[in-house]
């Protein structure tokens, strides 16, 4: 029982810190509330879609910014997609990066865009890492015979 208690505390502390540090916002909590017995892997499925989507978008952005003549409208369209999906999952820092990125697109500022792309990649891989850790903790709790605490 003790190990379950420890793992649960770790999970709660980690989730809280993710929220405080702005990695995941209210929207992520909403997703967790949508998960139930009829759809026990809902959050994991949504997050997997987000990972696939994001990695495609990052590749598309890199390609678009490497063109001889950069089509800023196309770049903006990709960032717009990324903003939509990151906000739907509650990946707040990624979403905020997208907002900044769109401003550079509007200004047709290539340097700004390239810098933003690097920062966007950084933020995305950070939140991906955090989410994978969160899921690992959940699995450990369940494997130890406990239930995952509900946050918020």
């Amino acid at each position, binding site marked *: 029982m003790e190990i379950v208690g420890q793992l649960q505390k770790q999970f709660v502390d980690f989730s809280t810190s993710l929220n405080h540090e702005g990695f995941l916002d*209210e*929207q992520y909590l*909403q*997703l967790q*509330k*949508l998960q139930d017995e009829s*759809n026990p892997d*809902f959050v994991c*499925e*949504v997050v997997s*879609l*987000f990972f696939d*989507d994001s990695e495609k978008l990052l590749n598309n952005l890199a390609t678009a910014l490497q063109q001889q003549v950069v089509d800023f409208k196309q770049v903006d*369209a990709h960032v*717009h*997609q990324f*903003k*939509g*999906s990151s*906000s*739907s*999952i*509650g990946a707040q820092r990624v979403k905020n990066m997208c907002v900044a990125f769109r401003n550079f697109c509007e200004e047709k500022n290539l340097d700004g865009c390239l810098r933003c792309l690097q920062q966007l990649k950084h933020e995305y891989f950070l939140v991906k890492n955090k989410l994978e850790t969160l899921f690992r903790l959940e699995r450990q709790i369940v494997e130890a015979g406990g239930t995952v605490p509900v946050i918020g």
Partner: protein
Amino acid sequence: MKKGGQKFSALVVDDNKMIRKVEEKLLARFGFETKVVENGEKALKLFDDGYTFDVVVMDMEMPVMNGPVATRALRARGVDCMIVGVTSCGDGPEKAEFEASGLNCCWEKPLNAEIVGTILNKLDNKMS
């Protein structure tokens, strides 16, 4: 719930698979019977095939046929159900254009419990 215990019906129109999944689940949690399609053209086809919905949740930017064009086309066909726009565009001319195409209201993404609750209240009020 409608009278007679029937569920309200919703159509989600969004080109992003992840967003379709989240919006469908959220609406289902509030008791909506939900269908999802990936662009405005597919939404129009459902209506042309005789489907009706109590509310359409319409994304703004989609390939093939976007939100404003689809909304205008639906209104032109006499579709008078609630059409709610969702966009990650923020306030500005694009949002204004979207609203002018015939939406009942427009919200910033992401769709959340508060927004769906508001939609449900409006539909309940319409019924009574």
